[in-house]
């Protein structure tokens, strides 16, 4: 208890906690879970966008999409490294993902059905991710905060790039415009769900706030996102698929319609259209690559032996 109080005092003083510092078990566990989920989201998130790399409509777009998906892999790498400082290996975390024990962002359980989805994911999904992640750059755990600074920079680049894709479509042919509107229709609500349940229904939240792992509530962040995004949609001439959406002068923000939480929980619990395929794809990549990883280890061991013999 005295230790907890001292720990909380450090947090309150905005000191960064570093891996070798003493920390409450709950703090460590919360971070391992959250950083792991975050890393998995980056990795699983490569799949829906990767689905369009071979069909990207121009070489410029193909290159940009490749680079984006590569960045996501890079984010996964930093984040796994940050989690590893807390004593769990990337391999363990990967196995938990494949066994369905670890979560990843539910948004990636929706399919990418047209090229407009690629733009829309950049615009909305990366946009929502940034809202979530900017406060994390000030997270009390040092390695996570530092990883997020790097991640956020790249994400906002992706967000602008995605918006630019949607803009090109919105200003393109009628078919392209329709494609853009259709993508917005499909991704809008799932993007709002990315911020998690309403504050009243959110587990873990209070303690995370106290530990400064989290700095804003789900609903606060969602409101920020809506307020930032609705004008962007208007600028494109696209309609946000929410009949109840309207400006509330008093709160200086938008009121929005009710989110379908049954849909949210269905997808979280594994019932989204792509949950099974996503994990299967990741597991297949991992299993099909086992012989490669094994060979790399075997070769490294041989080389080490030879080096020793030579010395």
């Amino acid at each position: 208890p005295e230790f907890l109080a001292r720990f909380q005092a450090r947090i309150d003083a905005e000191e960064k906690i570093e891996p070798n510092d003493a920390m409450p078990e709950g703090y460590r566990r919360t971070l391992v879970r959250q950083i792991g989920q975050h890393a998995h989201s980056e990795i699983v998130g490569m799949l829906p966008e990767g689905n369009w790399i071979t069909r990207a409509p121009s070489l410029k777009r193909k290159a940009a999409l490749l680079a984006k998906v590569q960045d996501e892999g890079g984010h996964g790498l930093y984040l796994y490294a940050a989690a590893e400082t807390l004593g769990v290996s990337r391999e363990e975390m990967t196995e938990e993902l494949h066994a369905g024990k670890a979560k990843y962002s539910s948004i990636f359980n929706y399919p990418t059905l047209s090229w407009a989805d690629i733009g829309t994911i950049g615009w909305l999904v990366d946009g929502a991710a940034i809202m979530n992640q900017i406060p994390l750059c000030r997270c009390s755990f040092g390695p996570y905060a530092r990883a997020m600074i790097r991640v956020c920079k790249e994400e906002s680049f992706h967000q602008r790039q995605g918006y630019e894709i949607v803009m090109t479509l919105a200003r393109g042919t009628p078919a392209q415009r329709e494609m853009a509107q259709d993508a917005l229709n499909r991704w809008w609500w799932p993007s709002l769900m990315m911020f998690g349940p309403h504050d009243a229904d959110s587990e873990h939240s209070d303690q995370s706030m106290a530990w400064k792992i989290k700095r804003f509530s789900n609903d606060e962040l969602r409101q920020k996102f809506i307020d930032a995004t609705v004008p962007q949609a208007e600028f494109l001439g696209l309609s946000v698929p929410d009949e109840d959406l309207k400006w509330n002068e008093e709160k200086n923000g938008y009121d929005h319609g009710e989110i379908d939480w049954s849909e949210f929980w269905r997808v979280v619990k594994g019932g989204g259209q792509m949950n099974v395929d996503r994990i299967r794809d990741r597991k297949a990549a991992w299993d099909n690559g086992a012989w490669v990883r094994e060979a790399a280890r075997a070769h490294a061991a041989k080389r080490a032996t030879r080096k020793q013999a030579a010395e």
Partner: protein
Amino acid sequence: MARLEAVLELADDHLILGHRISEWCGHAPMLEEDLALPNMALDLIGTARVLYDHAAKLEGKGRSEDDLAMLRVEREYRNCLLVERPNGDFAQTMLRQLYFAAFMEPFWKAALGSSDEIIRGVAGKAVKEMAYHIRHAGEWVIRLGDGTEESARRMQGAVTELHRFTGELFESSPAAAACEAEGVLPVRADMRGDWDRVIGMVFGEALLEQPDIPFPQTGGRAGIHGEQLGHLLAEMQYLQRAYPGAEW
């Protein structure tokens, strides 16, 4: 026009190989390779873009880089057969990359002296990229060749599968030969020494042997491709074909 054709050959080589590599995206055997493979794909597609743009200007008919890359039919693609081969397993993908880069690295080095300014510009950047591809792919060929029993078997299988397509790298189409005579492009056959040296070194460490190839395979420069290319193109061209004239 010989230069247009020869530039398209190079552009197609880079695009098709880059496309193949990009098929790995999200499915690599480890996260580090999920970063390295797109890197290589980006290098190749980047080079292809400059070359298609150059070709479009040489042609002078108002076609764009994307028109050339995405709106020709299978028989009009001029890439060599090696680059269109399916990815197969990771051993085949890495070997194909090594074979290609071990050719292109000395090629671009020689092209630094091209009389064509754009080619010189491409070469300056590409020569470093290809050196990296040789290193990265070469290390994997060594690791897999001298790794486990399974990886050695797969690596030798990759050699059996792909070696027969390497001869085509050193052959010049009439268009390329014309460019070589004018000093626009290096003589392809001249790369043989460097290629043999690099492959020999890697194979030595990888405990692999270069097989005898009774029937080297060629045909790509004449547009006689394998049956896989058409399927690749059907995907690659889909949006351009489905929405003619749209900007993306």
